[in-house]
């Protein structure tokens, strides 16, 4: 079955207007360059509206959205339970001179839900959370250095970026020690060299960097890291901003069987409402209270009400396991469809937020062609980043995705006969 190819002329027209008044046209990670829209004309640039697992672009095309706004869409866009809770709070007040009652209710819910949480502290973005966690580690230990993992993404603050990037100075990153993923020996060497000055170790629950197969922790990796952190007075921080609630509602750390000191959450906690949090252990409560860290909108009540409703819905649905199962059904189907056309599709990471790559070349060109052909027909895939499942994804969405993927694989195979499996 052949699926119609979308036109996205209105997106391009609006983008040209945007270029005159917005740096890069669409600043940040949603821009066509940062989003790896390759070729750009295969992709829409602007969304008009959303519902459940879909967005509609401004040309009126509907897409099954596997980016889920890069993670926040966890229950389906405009989930009625979440929207009702947000609306009820909005009636009472959102950004106020004092926090709402809901701030306490959300903190209690997080403490009850996340295994290591004895307290919660709220902010707006993942970057706010990771930067706060790093400040807390320094405040609690009186040390300077932070261990982080090569290729790990913790936001956009200068300390999270690489020296030499525009606007990033050597001083900004001077206290970072960058280690390979899954390398306990490298951590031991870093402790031997800098041990008395290492404040914290920050990493995502597994290696979900872009442009590369994602890697789960090796057997015993996290347990050994935990042991070394404890023995050397180093604060262990898990950046659960991307994985959070898609592996385990009690925290991705519990999924992998270890207990960090701090955990950062953002994307999935309020189904698209803007809020993030750091949760931590009792021993770091004082440090959390003493670090001065705040913002104009950080106590806004509507996102907190949305977060309460989101977490309760995820509990009711057993959301993490539901998304893992849906992801498994989808990715199994994608692998089979690729194989039918002589292509090898490798799936890595957790199925609820899988990374996929056609391995018949090492340049990602086949992967880029595949994602473009899918997107042109209504399945929104990007080639560089892991994708996301949300709980509203239906069996029919998966079936339609697999049909379109089959057509896209067929096109890619037809264009690249020399690359196919024999």
């Amino acid at each position: 079955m052949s699926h119609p190819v979308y036109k996205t002329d209105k997106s391009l027209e609006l983008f040209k207007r945007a270029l005159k008044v917005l740096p890069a046209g669409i600043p940040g990670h949603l821009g066509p360059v940062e989003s790896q829209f390759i070729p750009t004309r295969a992709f829409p640039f602007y969304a008009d509206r959303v519902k459940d697992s879909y967005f509609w672009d401004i040309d009126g095309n509907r897409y099954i959205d596997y980016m889920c706004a890069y993670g926040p869409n966890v229950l389906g866009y405009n989930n009625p339970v979440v929207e009702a809770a947000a609306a009820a709070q909005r009636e009472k007040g959102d950004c106020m001179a004092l926090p709402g009652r809901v701030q306490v209710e959300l903190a209690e819910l997080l403490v009850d839900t996340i295994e290591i949480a004895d307290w919660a502290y709220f902010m707006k973005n993942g970057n706010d959370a990771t930067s706060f966690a790093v400040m807390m580690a320094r405040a609690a230990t009186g040390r300077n250095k932070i261990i982080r993992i090569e290729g790990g993404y913790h936001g956009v603050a200068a300390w999270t970026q690489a020296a030499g990037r525009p606007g990033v100075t050597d001083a900004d990153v001077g206290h970072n020690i960058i280690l390979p993923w899954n390398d306990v020996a490298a951590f031991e060497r870093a402790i031997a060299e800098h041990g008395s000055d290492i404040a914290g170790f920050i990493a995502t629950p597994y290696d979900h960097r872009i442009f590369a197969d994602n890697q789960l922790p090796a057997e015993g990796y996290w347990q050994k890291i935990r042991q070394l952190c404890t023995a050397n007075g180093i604060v262990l921080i898990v950046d659960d901003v991307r994985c959070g609630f898609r592996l385990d509602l009690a925290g991705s750390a519990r999924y992998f069987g270890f207990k960090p000191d701090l955990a950062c959450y953002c994307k999935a906690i309020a189904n698209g409402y803007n809020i993030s949090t750091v949760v931590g252990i009792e021993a770091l409560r004082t440090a959390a209270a003493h670090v001065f860290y705040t913002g104009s909108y950080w106590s806004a009540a509507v996102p907190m009400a949305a977060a309460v409703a989101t977490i309760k819905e995820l509990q009711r649905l057993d959301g993490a396991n539901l998304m893992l199962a849906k992801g498994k059904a989808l990715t199994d189907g994608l692998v089979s469809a690729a194989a039918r056309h002589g292509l090898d599709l490798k799936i890595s990471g957790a199925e609820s937020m899988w990374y996929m790559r056609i391995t018949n070349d090492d340049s990602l060109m086949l992967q880029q062609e595949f994602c473009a052909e899918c997107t042109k027909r209504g399945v929104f895939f990007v080639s560089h980043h892991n994708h996301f499942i949300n709980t509203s994804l239906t069996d029919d969405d998966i079936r339609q995705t697999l049909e379109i993927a089959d057509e896209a694989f067929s096109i890619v195979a037809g264009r690249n006969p020399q690359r196919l499996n024999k």
Partner: protein
Amino acid sequence: MLDQSVLARCNLFGVLKNIEYLAEHDPESAAFLPERPLSIRFAVHGGPLATLRLNPAKADMLAGRHPATVVLGFASPEHFNRMVSGKANPIPLKGLHRLAYLTGPFGKLTKRLEGYLRPDEATLRDPERFRRSAEMTLYAAMFSLVEIANGDPQGRRSAARIPDGVLQVSVAGSVGVRIVARGGQLSATKGYDPDPRALLHFASLQAAADIFSGKLDTYTALATGDLEMRGYIPMIDNINPVLDLVAEYLK
């Protein structure tokens, strides 16, 4: 701050290397090539060493020491760079009998090169001269990029992050440059690779010229398809900061 030694390498292996192109593609330049073979060695104290081989119909810029009819010495990279800017003279160390060629036809050849790399309106209006100008500009930028990536401190830092492979830079209906990355070191050759790991493709010479002159920004060009990138994007992503430096070095 520009590294003068890197700038000298850009001037030699990015800018003056285009004399090769002039000899091959610019009929008017033929009159300024020597009637019998001539090799000019540029010996820059504390900087690069290169030899420009000129024949009646061909030119080659070679890195390193090669047999030379004429040797031009420079006290420092700064001295060489001032010479390129027309603000200093070289020290002739050998081949004084060919001095008349250097001050005469060779000077006209380099003037012609400058005319293509800093084109006036008349050059831009003439389709054939525009093509030569745009192609030489692309070559100057790409070969200078390699020098900056290998020599400039900031460039080296970016180059260290470039994954191994071939980046193919190409212009529709025009020329291509293969940039090879190996262990954080770059090299470049003219032409096309059968199996590049990443592609940076300009849809037309006009698009390439507009992007290099700053008339067209890359975000617009990528959105409209005037510029296309494909393949292993971390290669291009880490080359971009070096490209920014090219603009600094060659302005």
